């Protein structure tokens, strides 16, 4: 197992290296990040020269990449186009995004598994129809629509009715928030509820559909029929023989999807005014900011690799037949 993990990590490093080269070339060749600054005739030449020097814009491409790589290995992701260090920005934005994404992912997993299992066990009945319809509805609904509906038809009416702000529509906390963690908790919750619900609704649906199919497949398998024939209690059959096996494919999907959730959170972040990783990346691409783009790529790629690795490890626990050499 250990050698397998090490082998996977070694391959991942190579993949990461190639990905950074590709992204670096694509972004660096997309245009001049100082173009808007240059076009203003009031910007002194010395200012532009200093910025070019800071960003190494006059160096050959390979040299710029090497400068970035040699610094990135030591955790220094270089400056933004505006001259600010990328590292602290990355940490701040990552924290904001993870606060929403981790909670939403955990709750989505529980919701997806629960709804998937219930729908499969009630196959063809009203519960199944309602669950399937709802799953497909949220699967089809654009994130921004769900977000806006939550604001307009949940947050604002409730707040107006109660004549106080319970649900916030913008930001991850109130700017003037003070006090201990427990005193701040209601404010955090008020800001987190809507974006988290939004992200859950657009995330859980595909997992729930997959979970339902997986359970139905497992229910028809020989080992489940044998377990039933042996007279094992239905609850025990479900928990030990059905659910455990049915979770294997879903685990793969969730692990692969996590990076998607991380990236997909950008729309939720925009709608609810969270200054997360996605918004930061979007601005980075817009401003042709190579260092921001590469830092985002690196962090999301590492997360993808780790989650895939985790999925492989979880397989081994869920299915004793799986062995890694």
């Amino acid at each position: 197992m250990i050698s397998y993990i090490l082998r996977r990590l070694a391959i991942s490093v190579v993949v990461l290296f190639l990905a950074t080269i590709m992204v670096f070339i694509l972004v660096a060749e997309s245009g001049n990040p100082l173009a808007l600054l240059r076009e203003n005739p009031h910007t002194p030449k010395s200012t532009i020269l200093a910025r070019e020097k800071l960003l190494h814009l006059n160096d050959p491409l390979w040299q710029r990449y090497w400068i970035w790589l040699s610094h990135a290995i030591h955790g220094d992701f270089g400056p933004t186009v505006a001259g600010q260090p990328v590292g602290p920005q990355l940490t701040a934005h990552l924290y904001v995004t993870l606060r929403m994404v981790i909670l939403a992912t955990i709750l989505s997993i529980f919701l997806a598994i629960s709804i998937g299992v219930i729908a499969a066990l009630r196959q063809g009945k009203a519960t199944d129809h309602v669950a399937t319809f709802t799953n497909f509805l949220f699967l089809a609904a654009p994130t921004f629509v769900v977000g806006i509906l939550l604001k307009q038809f949940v947050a604002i009416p409730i707040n107006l009715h109660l004549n106080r702000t319970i649900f916030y529509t913008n930001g991850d906390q109130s700017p003037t928030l003070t006090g201990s963690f427990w005193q701040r908790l209601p404010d955090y919750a008020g800001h987190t509820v809507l974006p988290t619900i939004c992200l859950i609704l657009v995330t859980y649906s595909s997992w729930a559909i997959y979970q339902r199919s997986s359970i139905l497949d497992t229910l028809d398998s020989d080992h489940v029929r044998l377990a039933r024939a042996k007279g094992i209690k239905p609850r025990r059959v479900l928990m030990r023989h059905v659910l455990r096996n049915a979770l294997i494919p879903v685990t793969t999907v969730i692990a692969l999807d996590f990076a998607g959730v991380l990236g997909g959170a950008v729309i939720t972040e925009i709608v609810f005014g969270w200054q997360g990783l996605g918004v930061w990346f979007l601005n980075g691409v817009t401003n042709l900011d190579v260092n921001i783009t590469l830092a985002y790529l690196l962090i999301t790629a590492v997360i993808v690799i780790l989650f895939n690795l985790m999925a492989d490890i979880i397989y081994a626990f869920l299915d004793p037949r799986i062995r890694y050499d």
Partner: protein
Amino acid sequence: MRRSRRWMAAVTMVGMGAILLAACSSSGSSSPTTNASSTASVKTGGTATMALDEDLAGFNINTSASNEFVLQEIMNLVWPQTYIINSNLQPVLNTALVTSVKVTTNPQTIVYTINPKAVWQDGVPINADDFIYNWQTQSGNPAYTDVGHAAYQPAGTTGYNQIASVTGSNPPGGAKCEAGSAADQNAGLCPNGDTVTVKFSTPFADYKALFGDLVPAHIGRVVGWNTGFAGPTQAISGSWYTIQSYSANSSVVLVRNPKYWSTPGKLDKIVFSFVNDDTAEVPGLQNGEFQVINPSTVNLSIVQTAQQVTGINRVTAPGLEFEHFDFNEANPYLAKLAIRQAIAYGTNRPEIIAHTIGEIDPSIKPLGNRMYVNSQAQYVDNGSQYDTVNTAKAESLLKGLGFKKGSDGYFQPNYGPEKGQDFSLQIQSTSGNTTRAQTEQLFQAQMKTIGIKITIQNYDANTFFGTNLPDGDYQIGEFAWVSSPFVSANQSIYCSYTNTNNCGQNWIHYANPQVDKLLAEGAAALSPATETAKFNAADKLLWADMATLPLYQKPQYFAFSSKYGNIVPNTSETGITWNAQAWGVKAA
């Protein structure tokens, strides 16, 4: 999303007196601005939150890295300014900082008398040294350097580069002038003086644009001007409010400056909260999370949504931004005056307005001036002959050039690369902008009527503004110019393109020595009346030459809680916070 603005609505400020590009469009309805900064009776205390559409890149508004509109809206209340642009777009002396200003000529000399009570938040007096430092940092003179001998990186040097010297005198209480130091570059300049004498090497009419957002010299010289104000700690106050906290990506909280020496601000706190999307601002206002919004990109949807909200005031005020068509005279056809005039006569500007921006503000009219917009007192309509379409005139101008109409209704030139073919021109603009896309389609249809085939090709803002326009890689361009009340900044757009140093924004390859002369005289005129007359005369010539075709003045949209008083929109680069010290919760 904005300027960021950029991009987005990301409009990047380039400092007082500068002109900038807007990469965005659309806007809001009508109601005039007022000059009143404090008319309603308001209580002392409370908090107001304003939505801002992008995070900050630092706190020194004068550097190229941090020169953003959103920061200006904050620093209006934190760093002292000699003049404040009021809601009538007029610079008004900040008498709390400077008790008097005397202007003399030959050479142009400005003498500022600093209020002896004026102090920075740390108790250090605001004195001549602050003026000396702010001049040196923005002068563009390599002799003056930052900490570590780094070159200063100002957003602009306009005006400061025409100053020959800044010296202090009359230290408070009859004290002697301090020697200053060579290292601080204020040796022998009486840095502790309360009187500041600014001598210009060449006249600069818009001197009121200078010494806004004074950086504290005694801090800047220690921490560095370029990067020392990256965080809020060093950005100490010399005005009504001070920065209590800055949470990256989230908010800035201002509280009253305890050391402010004049009438204190009404509100206890003013909070600036960052949003990612302009469309999120109205729900935030409705939900009580914001009390003031000024979305950078305004569309019908935002306006209509805001109309459903109760308990708020909505104001659509004419801004300093105007949409126009650029004609690149490097093109062999657009080089001919008759063709540019034919296009202008064939362009139905009222129709374009009615189907785009007029849906938000029906009162908008075609713009008849490039130097001043309709809402400025100096505005004169120099382009009224183009207010209505004149198809016959347009066609006769083309026929006069020897162009013949083909069976498909398009003219065919008798020279150049399109000789014997349908006369075709391309219009470019920024992609993803609905208003501009609609304008281009209407323009295409209108030009078909007069026999010119128009093709549309749009690019992302960075390519359009960063490459195509400066490189002259376009024929007709549609975008907005955003000016300041300081009209001399227009010189760089319309003075002859052959003068590359000063006319870097003349992408249309326009050249007229008479216009050059008028612009130069206007920029050097110390009399406002003379300045206005010269710039209006230059604009008249630009109409005669049909250098560009102004379309309309773009409005700005403001909405704010009706529970608050003294909130007065300001469409200059100062922003709505120009009088935020007077904002407050209305008295019952």
